[in-house]
């Protein structure tokens, strides 16, 4: 035995010593370990999606029904109790049920508006950054105008023209909200396209679409993903702002913004009308932000070992 130990290692063993087999652990698991808050963010987003999808099953009442027993004798909303676990609003509707259905609106508007912005902003940003020149000047001047305009005013005007509905709200927010995305994508493309690996791809004879979509696009995805998840959060807030202003989702459809708007008129004696939708909004936005930070790490081949 001792003799064998003294022998010089076989080439095979040498090879193994030089490159010890690393424990293959999926990147997903490694990211979760390194960034546990991602997990929290992901769970919050999943919970939101779950609530939005199964609002019909989870809700205890019809969210739009005005209960005769939902108001106190003096007409004031009821505080949380056994029947109405989050109380009722000033029309005697169940706050809990409205909150669940409101998640649908928030999520729908947040996600779809962000996807529209993502698509427009990325397309224009890539064209602008890669081709430069005259095209770049035109796209960037339009972007400047979009950014200089008071955004809310813009959206309000567009929604007013389109007539308020859920789909028109996310179209308006999405179509107007791409400017920041375009700016960031353009800057990233301008940075990445100067790298020699892009030159190498050209030298190897790659076609333009291959360079744009297989080389440049994957290398700019990290900030794009982060920005998109952050945008989902802020677009959810924007929806509630619009609903709060009365040009968002139209009554009686519940949305967190409209609930806040209605609740603030009576919040002195019915504060739960602000607590619950406010809390829901905050947690949802926080969830998307945490998730965004985590996704950035997941898309970075270098950071996580």
């Amino acid at each position, binding site marked *: 035995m001792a003799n064998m130990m003294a022998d010089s290692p076989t080439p095979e063993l040498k*090879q193994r010593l*030089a*490159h010890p087999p690393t424990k293959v652990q999926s990147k997903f698991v490694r990211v979760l370990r390194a960034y546990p808050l991602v997990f929290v963010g992901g769970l919050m987003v999943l919970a939101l999606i779950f609530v939005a999808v199964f609002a019909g099953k989870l809700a205890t009442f019809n969210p739009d029904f005005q209960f005769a027993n939902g108001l106190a004798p003096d007409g004031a909303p009821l505080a949380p109790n056994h029947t109405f676990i989050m109380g009722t609003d000033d029309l005697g509707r169940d706050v809990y049920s409205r909150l669940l259905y409101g998640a649908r609106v928030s999520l729908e508007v947040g996600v779809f508006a962000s996807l529209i912005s993502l698509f427009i902003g990325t397309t224009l940003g890539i064209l602008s950054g890669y081709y430069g020149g005259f095209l770049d000047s035109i796209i960037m001047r339009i972007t400047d105008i979009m950014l200089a305009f008071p955004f809310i005013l813009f959206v309000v005007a567009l929604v007013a023209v389109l007539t308020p509905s859920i789909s028109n709200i996310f179209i308006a927010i999405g179509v107007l909200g791409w400017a920041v995305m375009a700016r960031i994508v353009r800057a990233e493309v301008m940075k990445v396209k100067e*790298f*020699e*690996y892009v*030159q*190498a*791809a*050209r*030298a*190897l*004879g*790659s*076609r333009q679409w*291959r360079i744009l979509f297989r*080389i440049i696009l*994957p*290398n700019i995805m990290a900030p794009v993903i982060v920005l998109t998840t952050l945008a989902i959060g802020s677009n959810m807030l924007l929806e509630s702002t619009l609903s709060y202003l009365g040009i968002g989702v139209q009554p009686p459809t519940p949305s967190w913004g409209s609930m806040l708007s209605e609740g603030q008129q009576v919040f002195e004696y019915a504060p739960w009308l602000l607590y619950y939708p406010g809390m829901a909004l905050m947690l949802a936005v926080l969830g998307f932000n945490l998730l965004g930070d985590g996704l950035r790490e997941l898309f970075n*081949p*270098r950071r996580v070992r």
Partner: protein
Amino acid sequence: MSEPLLQVRGLKKYFPIRKGVLRRVAGQVRAVDGVSFEVAAGETLGLVGESGCGKSTAGRSILRLIEPSAGQILFNGRDIRKLRAGQMRLMRREMQIVFQDPYASLNPRYTVRQILEEPMIIHGLFHSAAERKKRAAELLETVGLSASRMDRYPHEFSGGQRQRIGIARALAVDPKLIIADEPVSALDVSVQSQVLNLFADLQKQLNLSYVFIAHDLSVVKHISNRIGVMYLGQIVELGSSDQLYEKPLHPYTQALLSAVPVPDPEVRRERIILQGDLPSPANPPKGCHFHPRCKDVMDICRTQAPEWKEVEPGRFAACHLYD
């Protein structure tokens, strides 16, 4: 001698300087200003010069990574500047480039295997994934890396290893010519010699031709058959590396060579110190571009540009000293 593999004639690249709101062209930077040379099959031509003399621009213009402003680039007798986009893509199989910075030249999102298979996919070289993988493994072994590591990402390799991967990528399409754009400048000295030896070995094995761009004279001497010395966008002297090092003709070459350290403390050599700065290529001096810094300057140098001519057999220079 048969026809050279690569002939460059009067290559020029001018970059416009744009000014003002309307972006009018206010002047031109003459990065490459009339460069001509030939490279035979299996030969290495070194291009040396200070930073900013246009050697990298010349290298990239030959591959049309930068579109040249004027001149002819004949590869196997065909002018590649006249090729349409599709034909040019095919031509790119023949000529490849190895870059200076091994950290920027590999796509960080691809594994080494993907990096090596990319050129095969672009040119449709193999039809099955298994064949491509086998070829990628061969390429890695060729450049002295273990094929077992091909599913790793570039950041998991050292600078020298990355440069080897860059070389393997260039070899993936079986090129005849490789333009090496300062391929060892970013590496440690110990690693430099390994990579240089790799270049030399590959040349023997695969009968490659190199255009080897560098600013380090000892590096270029080691690997080149012939050397061209560039100054301010032009080649001022061209000759076989032995002759050029033994007896430099052009005063600029003399000054450059006098700056190469000699590994012998006893040897005292006269250093020729160049006076003044490198002039701007946007506004080069009249006459000979080198005259404001030349130790042998004559009156004619200030007014008339010297002709490019064969001073001795196989030795070219552009200098009035040899009129």
